[in-house]
């Protein structure tokens, strides 16, 4: 491989850089996580086409969420995936190529709001319970179910926040975790003069 690095022509260097492939021998490939929003025909088989495309072409699929939009004929997907520049651009193009996709939007690198919802059942009683509720308070979680042995808590926030909460609950004994996967939306651009008229 090192021999190749020496013999690369300028054109080959351009290609490697464009693909996000390492140019120097031994360098790690530049793989990034991307959040892609897709507006999709809300019709039979549309979602499966998207998911199937990921598996047929060997793309990574970290999470997918789907729900109907304000227009009942359109559903909205939020896809979390990973890859280098070349792979991500292929994913976007292959998504666009599907007949059912109305709009494909990679929000990564833009100013966006991202949320994930998580319901977590924690096994706890006595003073343990107070501790759990305290952490829950800090994370602005909600208690959605209570039994003598179990607390069910709902946490909403960016994925890192949910990860952190789940990690904090681990020592107490997690009974069950349900995570929604991420949804994301680009923020509206702020008016340049601060909004006054």
């Amino acid at each position: 491989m090192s021999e190749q690095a020496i013999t690369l022509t300028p054109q080959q260097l351009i290609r490697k850089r464009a693909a996000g492939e390492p140019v120097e021998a031994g360098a790690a490939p530049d793989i990034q996580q991307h959040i892609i929003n897709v507006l999709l025909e809300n019709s039979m088989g549309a979602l499966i086409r998207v998911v199937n495309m990921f598996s047929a072409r060997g793309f990574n699929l970290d999470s997918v969420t789907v729900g109907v939009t304000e227009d009942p004929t359109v559903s909205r997907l939020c896809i979390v995936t990973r890859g280098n520049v070349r792979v991500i651009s292929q994913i976007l193009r292959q998504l666009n190529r599907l007949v059912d996709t109305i709009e494909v939007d990679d929000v990564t690198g833009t100013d966006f709001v991202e949320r994930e919802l998580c319901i977590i059942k924690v096994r706890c009683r006595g003073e343990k319970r107070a501790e759990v509720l305290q952490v829950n308070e800090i994370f602005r979680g909600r208690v959605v179910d209570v039994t003598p042995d179990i607390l069910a808590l709902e946490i909403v926030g960016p994925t890192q926040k949910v990860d952190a909460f789940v990690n904090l609950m681990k020592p107490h004994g997690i009974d069950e975790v349900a995570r929604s996967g991420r949804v994301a939306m680009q923020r509206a651009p702020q008016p340049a003069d601060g909004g006054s008229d």
Partner: protein
Amino acid sequence: MSSASTAAALAEPQARLRGKAAVQQHIGKRMSGAEIFLRALEAEDARVVFGHPGGAVIHVYDEMARVQPNFKHVLVRHEQGGTHAAEGYAKATGEVGTVLVTSGPGATNTVTGIADAFMDSVPIVVFTGQVPLPLIGNDAFQETDTLGVTRSITKHNYLVRAPEDIPRIVHEAYHLARTGRPGPVVVDLPKDVLMSEGVFAYDDAIRMRGYSVPHECDEVRLRRAVRMIESAQRPLLYVGGGAINANACEALTEFARHLNVPVTTSLHGLGAFPENDPLSLGMLGMHGTWWANQAVQHADLIIAVGARFDDRVTGMVDRWAPHAAIIHIEIDKSCISKNIYADLAFNADAKPVLEALRPLVRARKVKRWHNKIQGWREECPLSYADDGELRPQFVLERLRAKTGGDAVVVTDVGQNQMWAAQYMNYTQPRSHITSGGLGTMGFSLPAALGAGLGLRAYGIDKTVISINGDGGFMMNAQELAVAAAHGVPLKVVIMNNNFLGMVRQWQELFHENRFSHTDLTDTNPDFVQLARASRCAAFRAERTDQVDGVIEKAWAVDDRPAVMEFRVVKEEMVFPMVPVGKSSDEMITSKHAPETFV
């Protein structure tokens, strides 16, 4: 050039107006779903339907007998043959091919042809019967999840849920198959939808908010392209099947001649640019010419037109065209920068881009580049041994001499395909039809049948030659009798070496002559007898001096297929060759010995 103009004529929407006019009288009438379906096919001007009946589509066939629609139905003897025939029809005429089969095995038998059409961007619409809607998911008799099975090998697929939806879905299916990057579309028709009644309506408008044909050809891109082209010292055009699909061949030829830029084509690009033009370098890639691949490796600018940088073209991607900047004109955005990064891309139909670009660029003086290519051409011409043995290349040269290039050549897959690509010298678009992407053995005969019937349906008088090896021929030999029944005078060539020749070649080159299960001597039939039993004329040549006689006899047959079996030597190999995983300048040729590979 006659065929260039016929191809363009076929692309005119007038053909479709004919369909629209044909169904006006039925609009607003109440009829069965099956009849609505037949009227919808008429509306699309489907002139030939390749089909096979069965339980789920029996009502369609019943209505066909009753209402006598204006298209010709051709009963194929295997659904795979039907899909390849539709591909041949589409590739020869430029129009959408149509297939009609039943549910379950009928549908699964079409899968190979659908996958083939998907890889090779062939516009076909496959209608599959389906069990009644209430039975779907119940493991009913002859039920298959056809949508699921064909999802990743179609441009799009549909399940029809009501008879009134049939015309819209059929219209969308043909529109999708034909426009943008063409491809196969599957429409699944449940039996109860075909049996129930509805009102026939026809609306020409297409309402698909998620689908549009791109046209990225702005001033900025054009100016950049002009700069890149005018500063190039060693420019090269690399042309694929997209140029033919876009009917861009005339524009391409004018562009290349105006700029004086050499042209190499992929397998599917053969015929897009006349190979008798001095600018033509023939095919590039694994079995391309030495000079075309050398030109690629030395070029400083490659203008790719409707091509997708397939691995059989590039070999090792990292080392392909190491000095060339790339301009990519391509209708399918997902093909741009997929394998090779494009420095400048036009995500658009090839024809308008080439036409917009030509007047902006000044003619090139690249004499040194042409001289260099001429050197490679003389260094390593295509050749085969002239020792009196019967070799396939000789047969192809004699066929070429007979037709003068005015024929449609439909090849199978393997050695016969590569020799036909190298030796037939294509000068017209749509004169070369093959299974390139999927590499489907058994493609040639049914595709030739479809091409012959398609040309006939459009009133084009052209000889269709089907070129086969003995291996592939047996995979769809059942369609011979269909061609005979319809009086299609195919010229069917079987290069019989009693071997799976291409696998044999790899076994000899890379697997130390272990000819594992490639010898067909014991399982091949007597091809002449087989052909005659299928009501075809049949002739055999075993020596070089018999070849012309057999060709003459075959050409004298005009009412049914003529099968020519040529007993060729089994040791013959396709050269030159870029072995898998090697770069385009590491070719095995008769001159450049394969010491790097042994």
